[in-house]
C-alpha cells in the first residue's frame, strides 16, 4: 500500500498541466450556461485541440491514438481538467464507451474507419440501448434487424439516447434472432444516423431540458460489415460498453462531488439560519460532516477499485458499488443543500435571488435521474447480489 504518486505519475501530471496551461480556452465560462446545441462546435474544437496533442483519449492503447495511461494517470488527467475548469469534450460517449468497445470487438477495417474520427470529434457517437419496453430488462429489447440481400433492415424505437440530436453514428443493439433466448439473439450494429428512415426527437425531462432523445428506425438499411463483434453475440458487446459506463464515469465524478461539498461548506458559513450561520447549527453540522465523509469514502472506494482493476485487467461488477454509492450520495448532497438554503434553494436560473445561478434548484431535480440512468439502483444491487456475492438470480 503506497498512496503517494509514483515518479511516472508525477511526470504525467506535470506534462499535462503544462499543456493545459497554454492550451485551455479561457472563455468557457461565458459559454457553459448556453444550451449545449449552441456550445457544441466550441466543444468539438476543444476536443480537436486535445486530439492533435494526443490528449483526447489517454486511456486508449497507443496504437489507437491513446497514451495507454494507467487508471491512476486517467484519474490525474480528469483531476487536471477539473482543476482548470476545462470544457468537456464533445464526443464523450465515443471516447469513454463506444471507442473502447470498438477497440475490443471491432474488425481491423472498423477500427481504421471509426477510431480516428471518434478521437478528432469529426464524428459524434450516441448509444441506442434502452427502449420503451426494455429499460432495466435491456435484453428484452424489440428493435429488430432482418438480413435482406446482404443488408440489415432495422425497425424499432430507442429512448434515453444522449447526444442523439448531434450523433453521426450510433452503437445500436438490435434483435437478429427472435427465436433464440432473449440474451442470445442480439447483435450490435454501427449505424449511420444520416441513413434514410432514422428520425430523432427530443425527450423533455422533469428538469425542463432535453438532454436525451427518442430515435425511431423505419426500414433503415445497415451494411453487414457494420456488425460489431459476432452476430447474436451483441449482449456481450453491450455489457462491455455498460461496464465502461459504470467504471470510468464514477472516477470523473469525484471531482465534481469534491467541488460541491466545499461549496456547500462555504454556503453553510454564509447562510443565516435562525439568527446564526447554518455552519453553527449542530444538526446541519452533523449532516455536512456525514456528507463530507461519504464524498471522501467515494474517492477511497474508487482508488481501491483502481488497484483491483489493475490486478484483474478489466472493469468488473465492482463498478456497480461506485454507481450505487455516487448516485444515492448525490441525492443526499442535493437534499442537504436545499436544507441549507431554505426557500432560496428552489430558485431557478434567471431569478435575481437564485443561489449560484440556480444550479442547486436544477441539481436537486436532476439528481433523481442518477439512481435510474446507467442502470437503476435496483439493477446495481442485483448485479452485486448475483455476480459479486454469488446469490441466485432473482429475475
Amino acid at each position, binding site marked *: 500500500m503506497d498512496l503517494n504518486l509514483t515518479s511516472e505519475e508525477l511526470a504525467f501530471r506535470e506534462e499535462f498541466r503544462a499543456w493545459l496551461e497554454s492550451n485551455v480556452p479561457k472563455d468557457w465560462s461565458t459559454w457553459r450556461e448556453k444550451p449545449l446545441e449552441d456550445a457544441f462546435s466550441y466543444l468539438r474544437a476543444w476536443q480537436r485541440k486535445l486530439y492533435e496533442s494526443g490528449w483526447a483519449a489517454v486511456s486508449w492503447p497507443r496504437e489507437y491514438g491513446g497514451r495507454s495511461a494507467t487508471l491512476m494517470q486517467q484519474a490525474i488527467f480528469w483531476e487536471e481538467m477539473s482543476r482548470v475548469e476545462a470544457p468537456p469534450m464533445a464526443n464523450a460517449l465515443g471516447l469513454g464507451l463506444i471507442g473502447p468497445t470498438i477497440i475490443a470487438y471491432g474488425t481491423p477495417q472498423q477500427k481504421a474507419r471509426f477510431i480516428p474520427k471518434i478521437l478528432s470529434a469529426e464524428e459524434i457517437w450516441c448509444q441506442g440501448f434502452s427502449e420503451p419496453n426494455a429499460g432495466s430488462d435491456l435484453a428484452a429489447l424489440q428493435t429488430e434487424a432482418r438480413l435482406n440481400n446482404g443488408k440489415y433492415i432495422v425497425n424499432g424505437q430507442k429512448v434515453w439516447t444522449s447526444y442523439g440530436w448531434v450523433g453521426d453514428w450510433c452503437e445500436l443493439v438490435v434483435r437478429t434472432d427472435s427465436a433464440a433466448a432473449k440474451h442470445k439473439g442480439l447483435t450490435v450494429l454501427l449505424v449511420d444516423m444520416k441513413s434514410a428512415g432514422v428520425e430523432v426527437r427530443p425527450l423533455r425531462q422533469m428538469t425542463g431540458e432535453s438532454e436525451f432523445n427518442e430515435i425511431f428506425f423505419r426500414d433503415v438499411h445497415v451494411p453487414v460489415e457494420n456488425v460489431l463483434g459476432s452476430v447474436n453475440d451483441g449482449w456481450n458487446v453491450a455489457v462491455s460498453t455498460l461496464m465502461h459506463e459504470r467504471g470510468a464515469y464514477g472516477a470523473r465524478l469525484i471531482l465534481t462531488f469534491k467541488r460541491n461539498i466545499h461549496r456547500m461548506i462555504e454556503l453553510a458559513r454564509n447562510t443565516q439560519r435562525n439568527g446564526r450561520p447554518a455552519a453553527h447549527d449542530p444538526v446541519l453540522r452533523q449532516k455536512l460532516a456525514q456528507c463530507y465523509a461519504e464524498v471522501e469514502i467515494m474517492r477511497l472506494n474508487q482508488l481501491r477499485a*483502481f488497484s483491483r482493476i489493475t490486478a484483474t485487467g478489466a472493469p468488473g461488477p465492482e463498478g456497480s458499488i461506485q454507481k450505487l454509492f455516487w448516485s444515492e450520495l448525490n441525492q443526499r448532497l442535493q437534499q442537504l443543500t436545499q436544507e441549507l438554503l431554505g426557500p432560496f434553494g428552489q430558485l431557478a436560473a434567471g431569478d435575481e435571488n437564485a443561489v449560484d445561478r440556480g444550479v442547486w434548484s436544477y441539481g436537486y431535480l436532476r439528481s433523481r435521474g442518477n439512481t435510474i440512468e446507467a442502470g437503476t439502483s435496483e439493477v446495481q444491487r442485483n448485479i452485486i447480489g448475483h455476480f459479486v456475492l454469488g446469490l441466485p438470480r432473482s429475475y
Partner: protein
Amino acid sequence: MEFGLNESQEILRDSARQFFAGECPMSEVRRLMETDTAFEQTLWTKLAEQGYTGITFPEAVGGAGLGCVELILLMEEAGRALLPGPFFSTVALAGSIFQSIGAAAQRKEYLAAIARGEARGTVAFLEREASWNPTDLRIVAKNDKLTGEKLFATDAAVADWILVAAQNGVFVVRKEAPGLRVTPMLGMDLTRKLYKVQFENTPADQLGELSAISKGLDIATVALCAEAVGGMQRVLDLSVEYAKTRKQFGKPIGMFQAVQHQCADMYLETESTRSAVYYAAWALQHESPDAAAAVSIAKLYTSDASRTVGNRAIQIHGGMGFTWENDIHLYYRRAKSSETMFGDATFHRERLATLVIDAAVTSAQHA
C-alpha cells in the same frame, strides 16, 4: 499509487486468518466468553509466539517493527474471529500509547514485557460524564497519587498496568498498587469485559502530558475500526451463505430481491468501511496532514455501518438470527460496544466538522 496490499502484507493477513481459524474457532470464543475475564494464558502465549503482541513495537524491545497498516490487517483478522480477551486493550490501545509517550526506559520496560507475552495493559479514560473529550476529564493526580473513579475500562481485571488519563497527565497504575479496586461492569459485549476502576490514594507514575495521548488513541481508534471490518465481513459471509441455503416458498431466500438487496447493501457498507479504515491507517503511518480527519471519517462511518450490517444480518437470518445459538449476536454485541468506544458517529461527525468546516472559516479569514 497503489491501494492494494503488498506481498508481505498479504502473507501477514493470510497467516493471521489461518492462525485464528485454528486457535480461536467459535467454540473457543464461546467457552472464553463464559469465563470472568475472557482471558487465558494458553491462547495469549500463542499470540506472543506469533509475534502479534509486539507487532508494531520496535525490534529493540522484541517487537516486529511493523506499521499501522500491518496492525489493522491483524486486527481485521482478529475481528473476523471475534478474538476474545485483552489483545486489543493491550497491543492496539495501551501498546500504541506506551509507544508514543513516556521516557525511553519506561517504554522499554512496558513494551518488552507485552511483546514477550508476559504482561498486559489497558487504558482507563471515561468517567461518569462519559466524554471522550480530554478537556472534560475530572480526575487529577496529586503528589503522584490518584483518587477517583474511571468507567468502561476494557479488560482491566487482567491488566498488569492501567494507563490513566487525568487532567494533569497520563499515569500508569500497577495492578498490585494499594487503593486500586477493579469491579466488573455488565457490558453487552461478552468477549471484551468492561470494568469500573477506583483509586484511593493510589500511587501512579506519570508517563507524559495528557495531550500526548491523542496519537496513540487515534491508532487505537483505527485498529478498533479494523476489528469491526473483520466482524462485518464475517457477518456478511454468514448472511450470504444462509441466504443461499435457507429455503422458503421452495426457493433459496437469497433469490428474493428484498433479501438479496440487503446483502448487496451489506457488501457496499463493508467495502466502504474497509476503504475508510485502510486509508486512515496509511495516513497515520505517514503522518499525512489529513490524518485526524481520516480517523474521524473511519470511526463515524464504521460506527454506523457495523451496526447496520448487524441489523440486516439478523433480519436475513429470521428466527435463527434471534437465537442464542447463532453467532451473529456475538458480533452484534461487540459492534455496539465498539460503536461508542473512542466516540460514536455523532462525536466524530462533530470532530470532523471542527476540522473541515470551522478550519475552512479560519483559512478563509486569513486569505
